[in-house]
């Protein structure tokens, strides 16, 4: 313990607690390095998850197309991996040189986990090399299964690495309550520090978020290649790849708010003031921006599906429904974006006639917002269902009954969402919070049961014609770019929210930030920083993908089998 304190003292005495970075300052330097490292890390952790799933579909579904797709995903991964490591090194060097006292404090607690982290990173790298370079060598029989297991192992390493890094950042947010400013860092048990309030919620939230992010970036890559394609077959391949990327991103996005809700609840349980700062304090406007971004995601995702129906024979039957889906999505987005509790000055309060706007205040509460977002999720699922059924006619004898049951499930789910949404206005807050569970439960149950029925109904279905992959107007591809930019920006925004609620603390209520940059900036400045990071990240990704294209020709194969059915 004394050794640790002496180390801290020595660092503080000889190097000072802080150093500054030229021109942009130490906070901006750390912000950029951490953010871009995280964006690359999210990509290289998310893509292996669905690469291994695609490979499994290829193996067990005996469809080479998915195997090739998985390999192409992994090729992107290989190139992005070194960028992740480089930005990680930049981040660590900046942290240790600009914030030496804080760095000494963290290493005093988490030193052993950092050694493990590096070791696993090493294993992960070599597993990735084996996984990619062994693809064509271990292609058949038992060797292919072994190869697939390498993919699983790659995911295990990646998940452990992420869990370790998450323990550091969550400790900064929610250190165990028995640790105080006077506690010597070397006396803190490492597992005690790791198992803090928000560790597991962040782990789960990031795991899902990485899949969403990876899907979106893959979608953008595919759309880039689609627009640059010179042959019909190449265009068809990248159209399909873009569809798969978008499908993965949107599917995981539907689950993400539930993980976010758990994380938010844990933050409130740990420290109410931190939760209030996040939702109703100086960050309250952030959620209006978030609602706008998610509205863009829902609208762009659905737009892509609706445009995509143009290449499916038989889809014209469902086209009239899309305008009503659009109405629900727009109304839902407007309600979700309605501010409720805002920090307002006396002039603004007087103009509103109270602490809440008389009209909008009623729509800004969680009852209305939960109702809106659940209906938006249901609408998006319905869009996907229509897309999925576009080119088939069910032949099972109970097809009509099944469709009616599905419609009934949608109506019941929507009714449950609306009922609890309205009832929420008439009950205590503590009861109202519990209603969101019923709303979410109804929507999830609808999604699961309707999907099961749909899969059973599609057995032996009559095809109305193969999907004409590649017959997509270019404007649909720009929707995929907007999705990728928005997902990336949203990730930066949520990172700012998570980190910013610590306000002027390096470690919440234990180690204070005493730099000139200690005040948490307003959203305007944060937005400029986020946009800068997104621009750097996307520029690098674009460059890396271009390099990848130079190094290796596309792995797409000419179509020898009928294009896979959507959603399969």
């Amino acid at each position, binding site marked *: 313990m004394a050794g640790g304190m002496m180390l801290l003292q020595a660092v503080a005495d000889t190097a000072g607690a802080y150093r500054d970075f030229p021109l942009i300052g130490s906070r901006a330097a750390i912000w950029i390095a951490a953010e871009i490292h995280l964006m690359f890390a999210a990509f290289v952790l998310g893509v292996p998850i669905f690469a291994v799933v695609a490979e499994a579909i290829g193996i067990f579904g005996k469809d080479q197309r998915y195997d090739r797709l998985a390999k192409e995903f992994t090729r992107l991964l290989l190139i992005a991996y070194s960028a992740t490591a480089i930005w990680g090194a930049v981040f660590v060097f900046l942290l240790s040189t600009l914030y030496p006292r804080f760095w000494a404090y963290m290493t005093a607690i988490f030193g052993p986990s950092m050694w493990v982290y590096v070791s696993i990173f090493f294993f992960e790298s070599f597993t990735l090399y084996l996984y990619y370079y062994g693809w064509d060598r271990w292609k058949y029989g038992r060797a292919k299964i072994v190869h697939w297991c390498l993919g699983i192992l790659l995911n295990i390493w990646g998940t452990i690495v992420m869990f370790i890094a998450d323990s550091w950042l969550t400790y900064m947010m929610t250190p165990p309550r028995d640790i105080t400013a006077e506690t010597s860092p070397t006396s803190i048990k490492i597992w005690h520090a790791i198992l803090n309030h928000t560790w597991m919620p962040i782990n789960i939230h990031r795991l899902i978020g990485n899949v969403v992010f990876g899907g979106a970036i893959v979608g953008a890559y595919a759309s880039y290649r689609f627009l640059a394609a010179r042959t019909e077959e190449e265009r068809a391949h990248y159209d399909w790849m873009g569809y798969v990327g978008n499908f993965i991103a949107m599917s995981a996005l539907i689950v993400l708010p539930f993980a976010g809700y758990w994380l938010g609840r844990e933050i409130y349980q740990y420290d109410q003031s931190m939760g209030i700062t996040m939702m109703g304090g100086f960050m309250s406007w952030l959620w209006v921006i978030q609602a706008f971004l998610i509205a863009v995601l829902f609208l762009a995702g659905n737009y892509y599906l609706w445009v995509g129906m143009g290449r499916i024979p038989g889809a014209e039957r469902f086209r009239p429904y899309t305008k009503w889906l659009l109405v629900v999505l727009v109304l839902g987005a407007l309600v979700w974006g309605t501010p409720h509790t805002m920090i307002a000055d006396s002039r603004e309060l007087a103009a509103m006639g109270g602490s809440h706007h008389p009209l909008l205040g009623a729509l800004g509460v969680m009852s209305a917002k939960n109702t809106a977002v659940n209906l938006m999720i249901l609408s998006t699922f319905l869009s996907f269902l229509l897309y999925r059924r576009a080119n088939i006619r069910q032949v099972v004898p109970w097809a009509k009954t099944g469709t009616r049951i599905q419609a009934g499930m949608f109506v019941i789910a929507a009714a449950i969402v609306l009922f609890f949404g309205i009832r929420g206005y008439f009950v205590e807050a503590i009861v109202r919070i519990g209603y969101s569970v019923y709303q979410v439960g109804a929507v999830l149950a609808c999604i699961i049961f309707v999907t099961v029925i749909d899969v059973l109904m599609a057995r032996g279905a009559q095809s109305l014609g193969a999907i004409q992959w590649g017959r997509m107007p270019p404007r649909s591809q*720009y929707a995929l770019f907007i999705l990728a930019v928005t997902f990336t920006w949203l990730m930066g925004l949520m990172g700012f929210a998570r980190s910013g609620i610590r306000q002027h603390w390096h470690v919440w209520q234990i180690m204070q930030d005493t730099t000139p940059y200690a*005040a948490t900036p307003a959203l305007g400045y944060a937005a400029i920083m986020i946009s800068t990071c997104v621009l750097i990240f996307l520029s690098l990704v674009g460059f890396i993908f271009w390099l990848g294209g130079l190094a290796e020709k596309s792995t797409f194969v000419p179509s020898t089998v009928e294009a896979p059915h959507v959603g399969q």
Partner: protein
Amino acid sequence: MWANNLRIIAVVLGTLALYTLIANKIPQVQSEVPHALTLGANVTPEQLVSAGDQLYHGAGGCTACHGLGTRAPNLLTDEKAQGPIGARCGKRESGKDCKAYLYESLTSPKAFVVPGYEPIMPEMGRILSPQQIWALVAFLESNGGTVDVTASDIPPASGPAASPAPAAGGGGAPGIAGGSTDPMTIIRGAGCTGCHKVGNEGGAIGPNLTHVGSRLSAALIRECILRPDTRVAKGYEKFVGVMPKMFGNQLSGAQLEALVQFLASHK
């Protein structure tokens, strides 16, 4: 090919610009750092109230809940016909006067939770220094009650919020009113309005200074500030000894002269 690339770049840049623009168009609220307070042994209630006011409306983060009327009781306005917090704080908990109750509410908020509200108040002792806590107590008392926080309540500066950053608020600046020579800033910073009325501001414990220039010369005003008990205004005999005698030490020469000339000119 290049046309495609340019369109992609335009879509990416346009989307980024749109999000950045929207985020810059909404109200910009920055989370401020609560600066350390250095309160001297002669700190006045007015200095405490001023520092507490700044904390309450700024870095203390109090307004995120208090004042909305839903999460936590309103403190600066009436609450259930009991008046603002300074008027009702002494009646909240039996056996606890206003000062003790407010201190407990800030440092051990779960010890007593006002009926009808959730125990969501954070322990401010983990966030603010003792000096800042006492400044908040004084500010809350001043809203409808009497400030009885004194320098003897406040321990020497230390604690988690102590920082090398320059102090903000009335108490932390060098000398009274941060060394300002603006007469009204000095009057407010020195706490004159705690007892004296100047224009529309101030109390009625001491003589009204609004037209003091018509009663006293500049030399007499200077003498009253430096040695307040040498001349006692008619009708205020019972308050002899109340006026602090340390202004000669705390005001700079320039401040004293600015104040004297200002008061003398008010005829």
